[in-house]
Structure formats: structure tokens, C-alpha cells
């Protein structure tokens, strides 16, 4: 009689686990996901099934880099195993891949939903690009047409730009890490004002890294705003959604990041024109006000004094300093920018001459000048300026203003 070896439970458990591990190594099992659940944040359990059988699958959170859900067809990479405690048979997975275009697209949708929920796509967090950048970062493949397109457009559009180019692999194995390395490099460059991440168009598989969670998070956590441009694609990749600004193509990315120097030149021209126009209008306006003031001076003797006083205040101390400034300006403008000077210097000269004329006129017509010519001003007992002897009665006290000093007198006689 053959003697069978007697095992303890745990011994047999270990033995079977070992045998399974040795004989099978890593296998790939395809089936439909069902009963997907996550425990304690890190442990992932689900079953895969086909028409006849189902099998438990177990893996750890960080080993699953794609979003899956019940109903999805997947390929599970792993090895058969038993749990130590309850000997539960399961497939110990290290990797899961969705199967078929449908499943890939579905996984992508799930990832989009997850990241959206976390706020990675939120419009509020998108940062503004600087208006006139001086230093920008560029992440792309040096072999790609995208690289040349971007540099060409940047060169045509703007000047004095420093471009820091960190080459990266934009598709295939290793592309995710390659791009992450580039972002890590730019983390330490506080002088970079914007980053362009770009590549040409391609299939869903080609663009896989641009739909990866890792790159989405790298873009999101970048201190510098990121512009993403994937060539000729109508659909938005996840990188497009997280980007601070999405470009339709690599060339478009360059257009977004720098302004067009022709446009900026035109804007500066309009600023210049505005400044000129308003300045000249302002000068014409002032001249008109002063002219009105002078004209009022002639509107009858009663209003002389008030207007003169107003004008004197208005022009008085300002006048001297302003004419000085105007003639100064005229000299500078003539010696400086020739094309700008002609109309304004002519205008300023005319203005200055007019102002000097008015000044002379005021001096001549002012009450003071008149008094100095020998005339005097007499005010009656009612305070009114006398023009007619009929305003006065015998015995009235009169106050007479001379060029120097005044006289108080009493009326003795009047003559009409």
C-alpha cells in the first residue's frame, strides 16, 4: 500500500501555490469584467467570466493604470494563485488591458469622467497666458514636423523670444515617462512663462500617451501654463482637456502663445493717434475758452472787472509757465521726431503768438492801465460806478479811485 504524505492545511496551501506559480508563470486570460470593487482604497477585486465559467481576480490599485467597469471585455495579465488564509483560487493580476476599440474608448471615457470629477478640467483653474512672453518651453519630438512648424510660426510672428526645447518621445512605449521627464525639468525653471506640448495627428493608439492619467496630472500640476496642440484632430485628448489652452494644431499652439507683431504695431499706432488727437483737441479747446473770455471783455463796461478778474485768475500765473513750456516743447519736438512735429509745432507756434497778443490786449484794456493814463473811477454813495452826473445829488459822499490812492469827496455842484 502506498503511503500518502499527510499535509497540514497550510503546508498543502503553500505547495499548491508554488506549483501553480512554477508551472504557469504569467498568463493572459480574456473575459468580461463583473463584480468590480475596491477595498480599503488599495485592493481591487473583480471576476472575469465567459459563457461557462467565472474566475476571481485580485490586484493592487497601483498596478491598474486603466479605468475598467463591469461589462468591459479585458485581458488580464497575471498568474494563478491561492489566498493564504482561505485558499481561495484567483488570478493574481499585474496588468489589465481593455480589448477592442470599444473597450479602449470606454476606458477613456471612464478616465475622463474621473478626472473631470476631480476638477482637472475646470475652466476656473485654467491660467492666463502672459501677453508678451520672453521665455517659453517646448516639449515635442525633434523629428516631428510639429517641431519645425512651431519654430517657424514663432519666428514669423514674434521677436526676441527665448525658446527652451526639451525633446521627448511623443508615442509608443516610454513616451509617457519621456514627457513626464520634460515636465519635471520645467518644474525648476521659474523663468519660463508658458509651455507648449505638441505633436502631429495620429490614431487612437498613437495618441495613447496624450490620453494617459499621468500626463494629465503633470499638466495639471505644472506651475507654468501649458498649451497643448495635437495636430489635425477634431476630438479632444485628455491632455487637451487639462491644458490651460488647447490648440488645434502645432502651428496654432505657436499662434496662441505669442502675439502677432504686425497687430501689436498697429495697436501702438492707434495709441499714438489717440494721444495726438486728444492733445490737439485739448489745446484747441483751451484756446477757445480763452477766446471766449477775451470776447466777453468787450461786452460792455459793466462786466469788465468781473471778466478781467476771471481771466486774470485763469491765465495769470499759469500763462507765464505755460507759454514757456509750449515754446520749450516746440524746440524739442522740432529737434526730435521730425515726422511728428510739423502740424503740432505749427499749431503751438500760432497758439503762443495768439496768447502773447491777448496778454498785451489785456494789459492795455485793464482798468489799471486805464487809471494810469489819468482816468479815475468814481463810486457813488450807493456803491454804483458813476457814469452820469444825474446819478449824484448835492451832498452825496463819493469815493474816487485813482491810479495811486483814492479820494473821498462831497458833491457841491453838478453839471449836465
Amino acid at each position, binding site marked *: 500500500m502506498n503511503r500518502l504524505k499527510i499535509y497540514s492545511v497550510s503546508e498543502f496551501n503553500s505547495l499548491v501555490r508554488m506549483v501553480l506559480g512554477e508551472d504557469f508563470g504569467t498568463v493572459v486570460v480574456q473575459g468580461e469584467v463583473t463584480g468590480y470593487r475596491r477595498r480599503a482604497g488599495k485592493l481591487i477585486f473583480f471576476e472575469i467570466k465567459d459563457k461557462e465559467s467565472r474566475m476571481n481576480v485580485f490586484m493592487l490599485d497601483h498596478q491598474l493604470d486603466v479605468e475598467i467597469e463591469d461589462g468591459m471585455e479585458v485581458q488580464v495579465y497575471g498568474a494563478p494563485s491561492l489566498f493564504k488564509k482561505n485558499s481561495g483560487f484567483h488570478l493574481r493580476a499585474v496588468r489589465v488591458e481593455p480589448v477592442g476599440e470599444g473597450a479602449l474608448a470606454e476606458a477613456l471615457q471612464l478616465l475622463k469622467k474621473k478626472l473631470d470629477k476631480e476638477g482637472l478640467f475646470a475652466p476656473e483653474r485654467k491660467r492666463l497666458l502672459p501677453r508678451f512672453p520672453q521665455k517659453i518651453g517646448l516639449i515635442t519630438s525633434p523629428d516631428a514636423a510639429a517641431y519645425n512648424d512651431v519654430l517657424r510660426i514663432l*519666428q514669423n510672428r514674434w521677436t526676441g523670444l527665448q*525658446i527652451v526645447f526639451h525633446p521627448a518621445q511623443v508615442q509608443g512605449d516610454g513616451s509617457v515617462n519621456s514627457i513626464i521627464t520634460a515636465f519635471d525639468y520645467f518644474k525648476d525653471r521659474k523663468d519660463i512663462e508658458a509651455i507648449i506640448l505638441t505633436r502631429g495627428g495620429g490614431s487612437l493608439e498613437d495618441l495613447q500617451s496624450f490620453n494617459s492619467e499621468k500626463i494629465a496630472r503633470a499638466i495639471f500640476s505644472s506651475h507654468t501654463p501649458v498649451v497643448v496642440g495635437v495636430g489635425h484632430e477634431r476630438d479632444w485628448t485628455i491632455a487637451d482637456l487639462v491644458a490651460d489652452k488647447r490648440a488645434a494644431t502645432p502651428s496654432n499652439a505657436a499662434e496662441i502663445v505669442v502675439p502677432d507683431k504686425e497687430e501689436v504695431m498697429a495697436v*501702438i499706432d492707434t495709441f499714438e493717434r489717440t*494721444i495726438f488727437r486728444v*492733445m490737439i483737441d*485739448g*489745446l484747441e479747446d483751451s484756446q477757445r475758452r480763452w477766446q471766449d473770455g477775451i470776447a466777453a471783455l468787450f461786452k460792455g463796461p459793466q462786466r469788465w472787472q468781473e471778466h478781467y478778474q476771471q481771466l486774470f485768475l485763469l491765465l495769470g500765473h499759469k500763462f507765464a509757465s505755460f507759454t514757456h513750456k509750449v515754446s520749450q*516743447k516746440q524746440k524739442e519736438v522740432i529737434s526730435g*521726431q521730425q515726422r511728428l512735429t510739423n502740424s503740432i509745432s505749427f499749431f503751438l507756434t500760432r497758439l503762443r503768438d495768439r496768447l502773447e497778443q491777448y496778454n498785451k490786449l489785456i494789459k492795455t484794456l485793464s482798468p489799471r492801465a486805464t487809471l494810469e493814463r489819468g482816468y479815475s473811477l468814481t463810486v457813488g454813495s450807493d456803491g454804483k460806478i458813476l457814469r452820469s452826473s444825474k446819478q449824484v445829488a448835492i451832498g452825496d459822499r463819493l469815493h474816487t479811485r485813482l491810479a495811486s490812492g483814492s479820494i473821498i469827496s462831497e458833491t457841491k455842484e453838478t453839471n449836465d
Partner: protein
Amino acid sequence: MIKKKTTTKFNFADKFTELEKIAESFEEESVDLEDGLVKFERGLKLAEELKQKLGEVENRVETIKKKFSNIESEEKSEE
């Protein structure tokens, strides 16, 4: 992001913004002649400087190369 403001380096953004503000103030407020002359001069000077800057042609490209654990950078300028 730290915005660098160096006294010797030409800062396009700052000068443009200053000119923009001067033009805006001319549009909106009635111009006081004395202040106006000062702003007028400053505005024209800024416009001249900015336009001159736009006339320059070169961008510079710096390529980052990673060799093992060292990062080497080589500069090449492009016309």
C-alpha cells in the same frame, strides 16, 4: 510664477501696459494741459521704443540634452 523686472533689460510687457494706460487716460478724462504735456511726451517715447523693439528679428532656441544623470544644454541661435 515670478515676474522678473530688471532695470537694464527691456521689458516689453511693462512698457506696453504703460503706453496703454496713457492712451486710455487721454480717451477717458479731459486732458489737463500741464499733465497732458508730460504724458504726451512719455507716450510718444514709449511708442517709439516699442516699435523699434518689434523691428528686431531673432528668436533663440536652447536645446536641453540629458546625458545619464547630468543635464547639458547647448544653445543655438536661429535666424
